[in-house]
């Protein structure tokens, strides 16, 4: 029976080492993940590793008092990624894409367009820029910021609606571009 005990200790120690290593790997991905979605995935993995480690604790100590922790963690681990995925909406990225596409002809080189800040202090200024730019876009539609079809090229009224709706955080959606995210670099920075 002693050899079996030694084998038991070795196997459990190996399992705990693997769990510790995987927790550290998940933490490293949580630290350096490029987008927030990667971080939430790593958080989900880390929660599952926590459940596994609690199970290892139950197996090692023969005490079933930690079993409700498993139930609570398995229910709570799923709410975090779902809430974060709902938070990172397409809507903010879409509005940012439209705004960047509208502002693009007003700059000299559209590649180095700086990212707008999100406060509402420049509200009327940007709306005027959007008006001018939307008029300019109809002339120069073959610009490299706008490779999409006509659904991407918003008329100025829709631009005003979208931008003002985003600033006021209203619920009414124009719904003209439900999935259209432009090819710009600004909306990529939204999810970081």
């Amino acid at each position, binding site marked *: 029976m002693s050899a079996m005990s030694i084998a038991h200790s070795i*196997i459990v120690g190996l399992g705990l080492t693997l769990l510790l290593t995987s927790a550290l790997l998940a933490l490293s991905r949580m630290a350096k993940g490029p987008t927030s*979605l990667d971080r939430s995935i790593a958080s989900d993995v880390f929660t*599952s590793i926590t459940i596994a480690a609690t*199970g290892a604790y*139950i197996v090692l100590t023969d005490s*079933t008092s930690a079993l409700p922790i498993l139930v609570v963690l398995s229910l709570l681990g799923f709410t975090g990624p*779902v809430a974060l995925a709902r938070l990172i909406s397409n809507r903010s990225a879409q509005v940012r894409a439209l705004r960047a596409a509208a502002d693009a002809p007003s700059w000299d080189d559209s590649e180095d367009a700086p990212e707008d800040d999100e406060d509402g202090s420049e509200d009327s200024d940007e709306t005027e820029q959007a008006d001018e730019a939307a008029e300019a876009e109809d002339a120069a539609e073959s610009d490299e910021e706008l490779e999409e079809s006509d659904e991407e090229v918003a008329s100025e009224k829709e631009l005003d609606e979208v931008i003002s709706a985003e600033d006021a955080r209203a619920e009414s959606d124009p719904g003209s571009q439900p999935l259209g995210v432009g090819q710009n670099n600004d909306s*990529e920075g939204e999810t970081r």
Partner: protein
Amino acid sequence: MMDVWDLVSALLLLAGAFFCFTAAVGVVRFPDTMTRLHAAAKPQVFGLILILLAIAVDQHSWRVVAICLLVATFQITTTPVAAHMIARTAYRTGTWDAEGAVVDDLAEDLDLAGFHFEPISKT
């Protein structure tokens, strides 16, 4: 009191820890959000079920088996929901590797529905 069931339980624990390790390595090593999601969803749940099985083998009582079944059911039902939400957000915000995708059925369906969707770039 060392039993053969304890050894079986320890082996199941080792296998579950190995699958958790596989998931963590996949999350670290895979290049974009969708592939990391694949690693995080499937081997992770399987490793967790193996560890729950280790608990059920270690404790010989139906109460523990019932709670382990409950936890396994929660994991199996909630992990695809979370993975689906993350994948949907990654697709809509375009932060995934569209060039590395072999097939993109959703883009074809969106084209049929009249939407033109262009992913942003490789993250």
